[in-house]
């Protein structure tokens, strides 16, 4: 994504964000003629209105999660509230340690909340189930099963016959374009292909919501942007609601209708941003004003200037020959 942004603009963004202080926000915005990230075109606003009229698929109410460690209790999630509507694409983003993964694992039923509820179609969920499909960052395909058998796994668990499972699985494999690999084993596939199988495997159960935990985090940039486009294509054509965790700002803006921004220690909802970039999305939009405005806002929320640990200066001493300047023209 970021490769396609012209250098000059990138430079400007980073300069702006680095100069950003609370009191100079207006000045920064005036420097770069960006609209507010809250500003929505009529079409976008109408779309959100329509989206919010859809039924609620997933509702999270007052979710708290704390882990008991030898050092004492650690609050991972604190008082999380949000709703996801049918066929909405929600991204969850936040700094490391904000409990993104804990949140999605709790939604999947792999962790139980300390308090609060997760409602799917209005009914509380307590344990993992096929109504919430999950795609993990680490692929988690069963290495002993072929691609076809991997996709059949969930369908068979629902009690379908071998033949039914097989014909359904083949359709899903077709959908993700891996027809030629039905009899291959996972270790024979590339990372991107493995993740496509994982998506097909989760969708084959016809879940109400697809939970994706940094699914493209381990992929190289090029494969990742292809996978993002593929995922949008799938989402457009299937009645599926997606909750997608990422730490990549561009990815979140490119994919999401709304972005749930968490903050760390404890993990709390910082802001729920409606992405003003119109759909259908394309990679070219990453230099559009709406995109940049949203990205600017996310940067502010996720990397506040005052507590950036990575900004510690290097204790650099020149250890090369005098005059041997790698960046100098002469």
């Amino acid at each position, binding site marked *: 994504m970021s490769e396609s942004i012209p250098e000059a603009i990138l430079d400007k963004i980073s300069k702006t964000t680095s100069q950003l202080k609370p009191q100079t926000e207006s000045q920064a915005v005036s420097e770069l003629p960006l609209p507010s990230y809250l500003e929505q075109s009529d079409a976008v606003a109408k779309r959100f209105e329509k989206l919010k009229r859809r039924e609620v698929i997933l509702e999270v109410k007052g979710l708290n999660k704390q882990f008991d460690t030898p050092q004492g209790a650690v609050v991972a999630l604190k008082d999380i509230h949000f709703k996801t509507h049918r066929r909405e694409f929600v991204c969850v983003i936040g700094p490391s340690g904000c409990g993104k993964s804990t949140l999605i694992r709790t939604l999947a039923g*792999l962790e139980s909340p300390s308090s609060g509820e997760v409602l799917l179609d209005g009914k509380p969920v307590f344990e993992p*189930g096929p109504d919430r499909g999950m795609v*993990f960052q680490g692929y*988690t395909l069963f290495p*002993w099963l072929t691609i076809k058998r991997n996709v059949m796994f969930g369908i068979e*668990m629902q009690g379908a016959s071998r033949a039914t499972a097989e014909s359904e699985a083949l359709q899903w494999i077709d959908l993700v374009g891996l027809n030629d690999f039905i009899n291959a084993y996972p270790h024979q596939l590339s990372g991107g292909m493995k993740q496509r199988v994982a998506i097909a495997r*989760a969708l084959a159960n016809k879940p109400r919501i697809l939970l994706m935990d940094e699914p493209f985090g381990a992929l190289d940039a090029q494969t990742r942007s292809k996978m993002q486009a593929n995922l949008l294509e799938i989402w457009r054509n299937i009645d599926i609601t997606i909750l997608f965790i990422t730490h990549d700002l561009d990815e979140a803006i490119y994919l999401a209708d709304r972005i749930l921004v968490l903050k760390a220690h404890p993990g709390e909802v910082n802001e729920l941003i409606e992405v003003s970039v119109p759909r259908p999305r394309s990679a070219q939009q990453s230099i559009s004003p709406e995109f940049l405005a949203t990205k600017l806002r996310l940067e502010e929320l996720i990397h506040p200037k005052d507590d950036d640990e990575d900004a510690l200066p290097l204790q650099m001493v020149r250890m*090369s020959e005098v005059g041997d300047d790698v960046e100098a023209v002469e």
Partner: protein
Amino acid sequence: MSGIMSGAKSTGVKSTGNTPITTTSSRSNSAPWFVVRKALSARRATMLTAASFLLPLLIWSIVSYVPFIWHPKIEVVEPGSVSWFKPGMLVDRSVFSEQQALSREANTAQPEGFRANPVYLPAPHKVATAFFTSFTTEPKRRSEQWLHESLWHSITIIFWGFTLSSLIGVPIGILCGTYTAVAKINEPFIEFFRYLPAPAFGALAVAILGIHDGPKIAIIFIGTFFQQVLIVSNTTRKLDIALLEAALTLGAKKIQLLFRVVVPGILPDLYRDQRILLGWAWTYLIVAELIGTSSGITWFITQQARYKNFDNVFAAIIMIGMIGLLIDFLLGRLAKHLFPWEKSQGGI
């Protein structure tokens, strides 16, 4: 990082600065032998595999065939005037030279002989011959068994001991690795029991199971079972938990989780464990076969040692090794067909 820094430093010191940074030379012929965790070329691997067998054989041959190396005895050829020497007798070199000196002083006929190794170290060619003659030599008594019968008897003992142990031990191990409750009720006691030496139960086994094959199978069982449960449960615990979580989100329930995820997930590692455990079972064989009435290959070995046919003893010992290695080799080959999803199988 440090490489770049030191490189920069050295060019800084050498103000000429025209030393080439990269030295590219063809190193294909002199690739280093010792590189951490790096595969060797096929030729070198074969060479080393051959050498691992040929080197011990070489040492054995040197000790056997080079007369001035070791050979602590003298084989008497001509007793001379020494009344108690007999042709073919092995005496210590010091004793022989003493007698030689005595007869020289007495001016009587001197004994003659040549340097030889003790009877318990037969030369390789003798053992090689024994490989065949031991099979063709008729048992001395009618009640005794031919060698191939003894070997087969040993193999059946191993088979039953190991099979019974696996039938019980593998399921318990898998359950221990899957459910903490099962592990907690079983493992502490098994952990204690595995330190009790299996042969110590010999007398007890004979009292309970009689003097024939029962106690022998029991010793193999005791020697294998307790290790087996612990090893299998550990292997089960090493299964990536993410696979179980993925199965849960796909709707797998308890029994399905066990039989559709845990069992197939650990199968290749379980198979490898079983190969190693089978090797251990073989090491209990000799002790097991001494219990009650001595039987099988152990009976053959002890019998031949009694007759001082050490070439037969060596041949039998090497046969046990060869059978073990052959079975393991075949199991290794089989694994490649059983587990096509495994990228590599260890061992040979």
